[in-house]
């Protein structure tokens, strides 16, 4: 979590992605997003989570803004948030 916060402060991203693809990490995602809240940085970027076992129930559980099950879904989420015209 500390690394996430340091990197976010350094890069000021529009989107932060948390992957639970190879290893399930629903609780870690939840705790990380809660840490963003505590740092007061939650509204500064969108959060997406991804992985083969991620679904809407996990999105709600973790508090993320959106989820995707593959890389293409992640690109489309970013395009949508940043209003990128293809």
């Amino acid at each position, binding site marked *: 979590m500390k690394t996430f916060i340091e990197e976010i402060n350094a890069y000021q991203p529009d989107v932060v992605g948390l992957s639970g693809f190879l*290893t399930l990490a*629903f609780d870690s995602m939840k705790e990380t997003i809660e840490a963003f809240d505590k740092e007061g940085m939650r509204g500064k970027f969108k959060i997406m989570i991804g992985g083969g*076992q991620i679904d809407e*129930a996990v999105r709600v559980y973790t508090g993320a803004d959106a989820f995707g099950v593959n890389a293409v879904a992640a690109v489309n989420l970013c395009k949508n948030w940043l209003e990128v015209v293809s």
Partner: protein
Amino acid sequence: MTTLEQTPEAKTPYDVRWQRIMDCVALKQPDRMPAILYATFWLAKYGGITCKELMYNYEKTMEISVRAVLEFEPDAASNLITFTTMGKSMEAMGLKTIRWPGHGVGENQPYQYLDREYMKADEYDEFIFDPTGYYIRKFLEAFEGFAHLPAFPTLSGLRAITGIRAFAKPEVRASLLRLMDAAQEVEKWGSHAAEFEKSIKAHGYPLIAVTLAGNPYDAVADYWRGGVNIMKDLFRHKEKILASMDKVDGYMRDQIIAAAKASGHPIVMITTHWHADAFMSPKQFETFYWPPIRKHMMAFIDAGLIPMVLWEHDCTRRMETIADVPAGKCIYWFERTENILRAHEIMGDKVALRGGIDASTMVTGRPEDVDSAVKSIVEKVWAKGGKLMLDCGIGIPDETPVENVRAMFGAARKYAG
């Protein structure tokens, strides 16, 4: 360690449980839906210890694992010791391809696979020419002395004498001693795993599988090229992938068959990693992934074994292809419940199915949600003649509340015998 022997009283429930598994494989309806217990780091949560302790404390992990089997009374269990007590062995081997609790990740975090380029693209030919030599020099790089080993195929005639001089080098001897010490630890780990099998057998519970197999594509991808790089190789180095797989194929197949026959247990679990819908096109799957894995499956079937493929990730676009197997000979375990439902439709008359409860339900749901999920899969698959062995996507997720596991096994009995 104390070895329990199976009593005649325990043999009957053991046989009954095992027959349920075999009935499913043979596409016969058993007297009730089998429920399987597979778990890794969830056992730490269940036993109230850290994941690190689970990795390093053989005795404690054994006690917790046996206790879980006795509480949930599954029809079969995985060997709960196998993937949870490897810490000392991994340290002894200097394994760099994976991190584990307390070793690169936190004490309560699970394994972390490191997707790296362990073999460069321009090293394919070296690997294809001599995979054993490449393995010794590159994978065992922590054993530095092995870099001095001779080229073994040249050690005939007088070279059989002169060539072994390298073994006198202090660095070679040090690496050999270190490898033997590591093997002693692995032997200890293996003995505990065998002890677990004996213990649950004594209580009337079979293991679902003993022998673990990979597959040729993942063997090249996982720990040589890495998942990201092999996806590029699908376009840039097609022939090299095929040649590498061809090389490892024989080694893997023969070793797996020998190990399974030695174990006396017919089910061979085949893992899958880099085949997912998102990782390769259907055409690439049919060219690179499916032919070698099917070839293995057929070889196992010919050897009297039962392949049990764990189809990880989303396999929606693979279904028609992987349905091409002989009826009543294998088990398909799907990570995603939607894949189970589709598989039941298009190959339910060919393969036994395993799985049915998604990780999201287990981790984020309440016991009543788990109960509903079991009821749903029973109605959609088991009650419609599907030969389903209930399990989660890849066993019980590490973060699952214990009451949800109780709900899962309770619902299995409530809705399907």
